[in-house]
């Protein structure tokens, strides 16, 4: 029984971190689908969101709801600003320059925040508190429930947005064929900005969820989180939204199970090994080809 309850709580842990990976992976996947850019700065947007939450709860003592909204708004704005300032001027240049720019922005955010707030981690007080659920001998924490529920809601909302709205249709059209979409009267700049806004808003939500489970913000927290979420996006099939969700959960579960087996130091290795195996066996990812709803 003890084994089963450990396994159960690890599965919940996996779902919780998997949810965060999935939200971040969605941002990677959307941006890649639309402008074929590996947006390395995406992980650092989460970092910025986390700092916003820290500032507003620990320094200004805002209500949690206010700081959550603030984090999402700031992340979204930041994502759009980055796109306008750094990526838009390079839209017609080789993809490598775009990639290097993304890396540069990521460096800039990390070092800028390190300069302003120092290299140390900032502890964020618990701001999502509520009752935890007991199932037999296992406990599901409130933050895990919130994380999983919020993620599912976000995904449902995003799917609706992409499938049913006009902007979603425009996004799908641009990712299908940028030139043809433009000829059909789709405003390219608006659509791309909107994609970045969506991805960054999800990153903002992810930063809140991250803080609710780990409670710390540091300038480099985004880079590893971003890389793993990126692996999740590739695993699911980069450019595919359901793939990114699935990939996030698979990576989260794999990490949790490796930890449960007592090999937690190999967590990162396993994640990247999954990446290599997927790329060698099926480079398009789990849902790359059959599901063509790219964004």
């Amino acid at each position, binding site marked *: 029984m003890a084994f089963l309850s450990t396994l159960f709580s690890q599965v919940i842990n996996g779902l919780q971190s998997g949810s965060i990976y999935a939200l971040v992976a969605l941002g990677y996947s959307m941006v890649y689908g639309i402008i*074929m850019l*590996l947006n390395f700065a995406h992980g650092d947007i989460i970092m910025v969101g986390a700092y916003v939450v820290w500032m507003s709860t620990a320094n200004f003592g805002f209500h949690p709801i206010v700081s959550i909204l603030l984090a999402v708004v700031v992340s979204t704005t930041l994502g759009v600003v980055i796109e306008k300032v*750094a990526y838009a*001027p*390079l839209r017609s*240049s*080789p*993809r*490598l*320059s*775009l*990639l*290097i*720019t993304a*890396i*540069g*922005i990521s*460096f*800039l955010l990390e*070092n*800028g925040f*390190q*300069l302003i707030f120092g290299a140390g981690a900032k502890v964020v007080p618990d701001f999502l508190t509520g009752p935890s659920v007991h199932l037999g001998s296992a406990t599901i924490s409130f933050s895990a429930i919130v994380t999983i529920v919020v993620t599912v809601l976000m995904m449902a909302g995003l799917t609706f947005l992409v499938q049913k709205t006009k902007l979603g249709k425009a996004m799908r059209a641009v990712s299908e064929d940028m030139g043809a979409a433009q000829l059909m009267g789709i405003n390219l700049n608006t659509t791309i900005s909107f994609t970045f806004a969506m991805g960054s808003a999800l990153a903002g939500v992810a930063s809140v969820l991250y803080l609710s489970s780990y409670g710390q913000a540091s300038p480099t927290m985004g*880079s590893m989180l971003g*890389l793993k979420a*990126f*692996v999740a996006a*590739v695993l699911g099939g*980069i450019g595919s939204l359901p793939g990114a969700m699935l990939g996030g959960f698979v990576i989260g579960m794999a990490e949790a199970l490796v930890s449960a087996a007592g090999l937690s*130091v*190999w967590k*990162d*290795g396993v994640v*990247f*090994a999954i*990446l*290599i195996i997927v*790329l*060698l066996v099926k*480079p398009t990812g789990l849902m790359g080809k059959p599901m063509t709803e790219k964004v």
Partner: protein
Amino acid sequence: MKTNRKTIPMPMRYLINTVLIVLFILASTLFVNSDAVSGYFTKILMVIGINIILAVSLNIATGYLGQLPLGHAGFMAVGAYTGGIFLKAVDAAKATGGTYYLYVAAALVLSGIVAGIFGILIGVPALRLKGDYLAIITLGFGEIIRVVLTNIDSVLGFDLTYGASGLKRIPKITTFFNVLLCVVLSCVVIHMVMKSRHGRAILSIRENEIAAESCGIRTTYYKVMAFTMSAFFAGVAGCLYAGYLGSLQPSSFGFMKSIEILVMVVLGGMGSMLGSILSATVLTALPEALRAFSDYRMVVYSLVLVLMMIFKPTGLLGQYDFSLSRILEKLMNPKKSAGKKEGASHE
């Protein structure tokens, strides 16, 4: 001058180049060993040399082959650990005279070969993919090398890499002279390979892989060859790095290190050896020069990177790279020192 299109015969060119290279090595060694240069400055020069080797080696895969590997630090790590473990095992610090130099040379070659073997092992599966996917898979391999170096001891029970606490007390074999020698040898070898039949095959793959293949070029063979060569020199640089620092931590060979090297190559101009050399020098020396503002230097560095990509995406040299070779041609002066040879890029 322009009417004089005659060129100096090849043996003569080789002779001139060799003499110039030897003179360059002698002069700079004498200069650095004289009292005019402080120890701090020599150390910076050594780091610059190591970074030059890393940049020109990555330039093979990025500039000449046209791929984008993001795991170059992994090969450097393999070389560094191979060299470090070998030097500790033979206890090179206690050796004297000829044996000492033999050990140093053996460590450098061995690191290169082991890194090269890793290059083949990783290159064969990875090079089946292209573009972004190749970038991602090499990133994965690079991270795995780091994780393995961190954890292998605790799993297999060796005392080999000493895990996260790092490999310490490596004999400090790196001197300005052997860094310089390695830089010159790497540049000369890479330049000569790129000017040969094999080099042209590699360039043709960059230009158009399908066309190259239909002309009978074994694309897989040449891609793996270029990748392995790139890994070999990264391994040599790693060994020099190990001998320079005297201790190694797996965490210093992470993804960010690969990016740093890539930035050097891209800022210098991809496919231009002179560009790689110059930007490796500038990007290593600049943070040192900005040390007074050390809080701001990483911010400035990343800002420069972004602004450069927006306003001058062709790299540090850009047009100038081309005009340099034209000036040389105009003067009909084939005397190019090895350190300043330009790659075969005419884009």
